[in-house]
Structures are given as C-alpha cells and as structure tokens.
C-alpha cells in the first residue's frame, strides 16, 4: 500500500487546530491578567524557537517519524525507552484533553448525562477518524479549521458593540516573575504540545519546507489565540475573566446584535467540540503509532481499540473531580517539559552528532 502523505497546508492546519483546539474554550488563565496577551506573544516567540529544533530534526532525518528517529539515533534499547515515554505522553495528553472536554460538557450542556457516556461517544468518533488514516484526518482538519476560524471571526464581529477597548489597560502592570510564569504556562500549553506533530512527521512530503510548516503553524495559531484572548478581555474584562472557567463561552453569551444574533454560545461550543476532537484524534494517532512501534504490532484496529480503552481509563482514574484537574494544570508545565523539550533536544543533539559522523565518513 502506498504511504499516506499530507500536503503542506494540511500540515499547517493540523498545527493550527492543534494549538487552539482546547485553548479556545479553556481560555488562557495564565495568571497574568491584562498582560496575558504580552505573555502570549512572548510564549509564541519561544514556541517559534522550540519548533525550529523540531523542524531541524525532521530536516536531518527526513521521511521518519519521531519514534523512528529515536531508534536510528540511539539504537534499539534507548530508542524503545524514548518511544515508550513519548507514547505515554500522547496517551496522557489525550486523557487530559478528553477529561477537560467531558468536564466542560457536563458543566455547560449535559448536566445529567454521565461523563463516561460522553467520553465513550467522543472516543468512538475519534476512533473512526483515526482508523480512517492521516490523509482523511488531514483533509477533515482543513475543513474543521475553516469552520472554527469562521466562527471565531463571526463572534468577534458581532461582539464589537459589547467590547470595551479600555479593558486592555493598564499594560504591563505585573512584575517579572508573574509574567515569566504566565509565559511558561502559555508556552507549555499549547505551543510546546506541537511536539506531538513530530510523531506524524513521516507523512510530510520530503519536498516541503518543514520550517515553513512549523513556523507558519505557530504564527497563525498565535494570531488566532491573540484574537481570541483580546475578544474575551474586551468583552468580559479581567476580574470577570479570571473567575470563569470557560471565558470564551461566557464572552459569546454576552455578544449580540439585535434579537437575532443573540446567545450564540452554541457556536463556541461547536468550536470547542471540533477543536477537541481534532486534538484528541491527532494525539490518539500519535499514541497508536507509538504503541505499534514499541511492541511491533501490525494490527491497526485492535491497537486503536485498546489505546482508546486505556485513554478512557486514564482520563477517568486520573482525577477525582474537576478541582484536581485544575490543580494538576498548575504543575502540568513541569510535568510536560521533559517530553516537550528534553527528549526532542536529546534526540536532536544525537542526530546532529550522528549526521556529522556520517558526512565525515
């Protein structure tokens, strides 16, 4: 069978949707209040630097995914350890996305439906999408991205009347350490999570410019996030925004033009579902690939089934309630950084050395 390939724009769309998939609704409670948008810009700059490493890695070892890269650079045993770690990260991330998603659903929409039912439904949908392969997934992501961007623009336009532009002042009222922490939060979630995309790197055409893919993905995603954040702040103002778990949802609730375009939070809801499913299916795809590589399994369907079950269990067992989820998000940066930064940089250095040696020979 021919290998599944995705085009450059599809790759960029995957990164963009990945970036603001869950962020769009979870909002960016970075802790920096008014200045979150500055933190966001700085974080996206750092993100841009980090993805240069990722892109360099893909350039060094083209046509491979991250799992293959680890194995070529470090040999079988250490490679397998790295694969196991990354696959675990993918599973953990999926579980996290799934859990925050089902919490969101329970709070805003289906109060009496058990979370388990929602989770299983989601996993069935993502399961079908992952089973269809990355080509279908990428095409779908392009459509979903167009939809979500359309909704973001639409909500921005109709909320102009409710926006108060003085809400962004004062600028830079926080001290350096708060800003640093906010930047770190935003850097880890969502920018550095694009490390997952490394595991799909084998589907990029060799002729495409990886730097361009990664950088424009980060750039477009950053701009969209900035717009989202500004919209929320302009409508809700900061004290309000920090109180609410799902600021985008609340912002859309306020926005209205006349009688007809009122109460459009359903569109934000749709946005969130689209983004979450995209992020979830990309993570699951990465996890399935990793587990298949780790144990040398060929069967796609069964692996997918068991990974989905595992994600379900992890997301259910991981946290007792929504408070634990939020507490975890405070330590999440330190937990995720090894996977997002340490391991890729390790593999990158190894790959550089290996390539130097090879070219010297």
């Amino acid at each position, binding site marked *: 069978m021919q290998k599944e390939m995705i*085009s450059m*724009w*599809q790759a960029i769309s995957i990164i963009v949707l990945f970036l603001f998939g869950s962020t769009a609704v979870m909002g960016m409670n970075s802790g920096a209040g008014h200045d979150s948008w500055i933190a966001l810009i700085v974080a996206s700059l750092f993100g841009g630097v980090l993805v240069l490493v990722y892109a360099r890695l893909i350039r060094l070892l083209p046509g491979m995914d991250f799992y293959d890269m680890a194995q070529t650079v470090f040999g079988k045993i250490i490679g397998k350890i790295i694969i196991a770690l990354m696959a675990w990260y993918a599973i953990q991330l999926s579980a996290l996305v799934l859990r925050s998603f089902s919490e969101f*659903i329970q709070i805003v*929409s*289906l109060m009496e*439906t058990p979370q388990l039912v*929602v989770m299983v*439904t*989601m996993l*069935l*949908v993502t399961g*079908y*999408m992952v089973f*269809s392969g990355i080509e*279908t997934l990428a*095409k*779908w992501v*392009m*459509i979903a991205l167009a939809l979500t961007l359309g909704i973001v623009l639409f909500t921005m336009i109709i909320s102009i009347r409710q926006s108060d532009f003085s809400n962004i002042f004062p600028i830079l009222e926080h001290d350096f350490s708060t800003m640093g922490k906010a930047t770190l939060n935003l850097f880890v979630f969502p920018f550095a999570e694009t490390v997952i995309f490394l595991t799909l790197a084998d589907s990029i055409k060799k002729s495409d410019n990886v730097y361009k893919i990664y950088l424009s993905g980060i750039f477009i995603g950053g701009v969209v996030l900035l717009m989202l954040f500004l919209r929320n702040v302009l409508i809700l103002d900061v004290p309000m925004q920090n109180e609410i778990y799902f600021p985008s949802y609340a912002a859309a609730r306020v926005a209205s033009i006349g*009688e*007809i375009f*009122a*109460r*459009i*939070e*359903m569109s934000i*809801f*749709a946005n969130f*579902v*689209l983004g979450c*499913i995209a992020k979830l299916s990309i993570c699951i795809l990465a996890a399935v690939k990793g587990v298949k590589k780790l144990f040398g399994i060929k069967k796609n369907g069964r692996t997918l089934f068991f990974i989905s079950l595992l994600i379900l269990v992890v997301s259910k067992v991981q946290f007792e309630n929504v408070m634990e989820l939020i507490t975890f998000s405070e330590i999440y940066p330190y937990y995720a950084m090894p996977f997002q930064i340490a391991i890729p940089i390790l593999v990158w250095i190894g790959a550089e050395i290996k390539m130097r040696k090879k070219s010297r020979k």
Partner: protein
Amino acid sequence: MWIIFLMGEDFMIKSSLKENKITTLLSESLEKNIATLKDIFIDDDTIAIRFITNCHNTMLKYCIVHNDGLINASIINENIIKPLMLSKVELSRGQQIDILIHQVVLINQVKKTKEWQEIIEAVTYGDTILFIDGESEVLILNSKGFNIRAIAEPDNEKVINGPREGFGEALMMNLSMIRRRLRNNELKIKFRSFGKRTHTQACICYIDSIVNKNVLEELYRRLDTIDIDGVLDTNYITELIRDSRFSPFRATGYTERPDVVVGKLLEGRIILLVDGSPVALTLPYLFIENFQSNEDYYMNFYYSSLARFLRIFSFILSITVPSLYIIIVAFNQEIVPTTLLTNLVRERMGVPLPAVLEVFVMLILFDILKEAGIRVPSGIGHALSLVGGLVIGQAAVSAKLVAAPMIIVVAVTAITGMLVPRVDASVIYLRLLLLILSATFGILGFISGSLIIMTHLLNLHSFGIPQLTPMEELKYQEVKDTFVRGPWWKMLNRPEVLTKNKTRLGSEDRGDCD
C-alpha cells in the same frame, strides 16, 4: 414485448445448461445436427426450423434455425431463403461454406462457428443459424429485428434546455447515439458479456487519449471477478464492482442521456452500458456529481451556479433540519429569539409526544407516503395526495397530535431532499443517524454525527480516486465546476483527479469577452 424476450432467453438457456455442458461437436450430417439442436431446445416451441433445398442442385441441402419473435422475417425470406433456393452458383457439397458467404447470402454480418454454445447465444439474440449439409461448421447470420421502445426523453432526467434524446433498451441504438456525438477514432467501444444464464451484452466505452489507464485496468480487474447468473440492469454490475460496498452513497454514476454520457467521456470517465437497460454507468464518480445536472452546462452560468449552490445547501438542510429542530426545542432554547420561542412553546403545548418521537413518526410517515406515491397506480394517486396532505398534515395539527412547526420541519426536510435525487437513499439514513445522536447528546451529538458523516465522505473512493476532491490547495481550476459552474471560457482543464490529459480548452478564449 421486451420482458417476454428477456424471460424467454433466460428460460431457454437454463433448460439447455441443466442437461449437459454441450460437449458434442457439430457433425457433417445435417440430420444429426438438427437432432442435437432439437435436443438442446427441447420443450421450446419458439425455435423455428426450416429445411431448404437448392432448386438447381437438389444435392445442396440447408436448414435455417431462428427464434420466432426476435427476427425480421423479410430479411430471412429475401436475403437468406431466396438466394439459397435460387442460387445458380456452382456449389459442391462439402466445400461450399466460403462461397456461400461470399456469393450467396445477402446478409451484412456473417460468422462461422463450430461451437454449440455460440449457436445458442446467437439464436436467442435474433440471429439465424444456417446449417449446411456436409459441413461441420455453421453460419451465424444477422437477422435481428425485435421491437424496441422509441427514443424518448427520460422521465427522471428532464431538462428545459438542451437535447431531449434518451437511451433506450437496445444496446446498439444507445451506442449509435453516443457515436453520433463523438465522431473520432479515439472513442473505444469494447464488448463483454455478463451473466452465466442471461449472457447479457455489455459494453465499455472510453476515449483512449483522455481516460485514466489505472482506472480502466482496475475496472477490468473487477469486471473479471463478476460471477453472477443474470444481469437485468446496470445496477447489478454497479453493486458488484463498487468501492466501499456498505456505503449508502453512490460509487458510480448513472444517466439515461447520451449527451451526459459524452460529457462524462470527455472528462476522462468510463461508460458501461448494459443491453436491456437504458441506464448507463459512469465511473469514476466524484461526490460533486451528485449535485451536477447536464442542464447546468446548457444554461447561463450565473443561473447554474446558483442552482448548484442551492442543491448542495438543500442536501445539507435535508440531513440536518430535523436534528437542528430537536436541538432547538429540547436542548438549546436560548438561541431562538424570545418571540419565536414563545410561539414554539405555545404550539407545542398539549401535544402528547416528545419532540423527538414526533419527528421520528412524521419522517417515517413521509417516507411511507413517498414510497406509496411511487408504487401506487397513477389512477389513485390523487387520493394519496389528499390523504397525505390533508389528513396527515392539517388534521393531525388541529387534532393536537403533532405540533404545527413539526409539519414545517418535515416539509422542508422532504422538499430539500427532493432537490438531490441521487443521494436520496443515503440522506434518509444520515438524517436518522443525526437525529438519534442529537436527541441523545444535543449539539454535541449533532457535531459528532456530522463528523462521522464527514469522515465517511472523505473516506469514499471510486476506483481508487477519492470522491471528495483532494482539498490540498483550492485552485480555480479545481473548484470551477463544483460549488459554482464556471463559464465555459474559463473551464480550461479537465478535473485533475480524473485524468492526466488536462487541457480541455486550447487557451482562454478572449474573442468576445473583455
């Protein structure tokens, strides 16, 4: 007439195959051959056998065999029997077959054969078999002449502008209509036969320099695997060769119009025609073809583009309207403006069923009505519309069995569904899937359902070609004939996924524009 013909054929071959595999060869003795023939066609009284002797040389004995009702009697009388009886050509028993072909029989198509199987197929297709005493070969003479339906405009593909010709049931007549429109040597027409018992003739047409050779190869590969006893319509073959067999969507196109067929051929598609069916199969099939109509190309492109857009929009509406109604009524009342909401609530007061069940009942009732409308003899169709419209519509509302908005929802669903008849069956299933999901999970279920449908659509392939065009980058030449129908002077290329030979228009015609 036609049905009788088909059934007769079926019956005959069944009886002959039941007995043996017909291993006996033709012998030189005329009597022996006729005895074998009678044995093969035992209990079949339509087979006519007639012995002839040349009046100048009584040593020359012949026998002609044909199937009554499939032949043109005057051809047999004038062009076969008369020359054979009166021929003064020097003939000698045992070495006359070639001279007969060249100098005696006045028939355009003549074929020699030794095979009984071939004889059976020829007789049952209206040919006349000439048995010659002293020869171990027979001649198959073309004498077909059965009644066929006249050329008429197909009922389900009517147009206001453009050609009105439609295919009939006879294969050769259909081919003539295609050939007339494509007068070049690149149109390839290949015959094949399907059905172990019906031996139905089918033919595959394509334009050699445009067609995608991979698709053609794949088609032949799949056709080779067909092992069915009868083919009465193109759909028999469609279902046997299609991709993703469980999909409710089509993987091959169909049309009854020669102009459409030629249009498809020119875009690099392959046509499959089956004798006895006016429906031509076109492949590969892109999803957008569900929304295309040949009339789009015969009318002003502004109007066509609007119509195209309306069709796509109706397709979406037809799937989503009932579930959106449920979401609004049962889950997210807040998005409805207050005045409308109070009206909705007032209408729904006193209605016994929950909205979901109401939608289900009404949708199923509508489908029952539709099916009844198709099956009912035309004389009592009037009563049906009365019952459907008045009783189920108006009376149900005034009796407070269903809410009035429900009727509107069902009506919109039904009418929008009628705009795109090619996806009719699939729409019903998708609608129900979405309805069930939305009724359970609200907007979440609706989005999940749409995602499943979307993924399914993106997964669809037709002969290795993705049915929804790859949307890598939106180029004008890719979308010119999808959501809009571009003007002819802008349709420079053929659809990229279908063929490698792209250029359709030499260069943009700047003659009378600008």
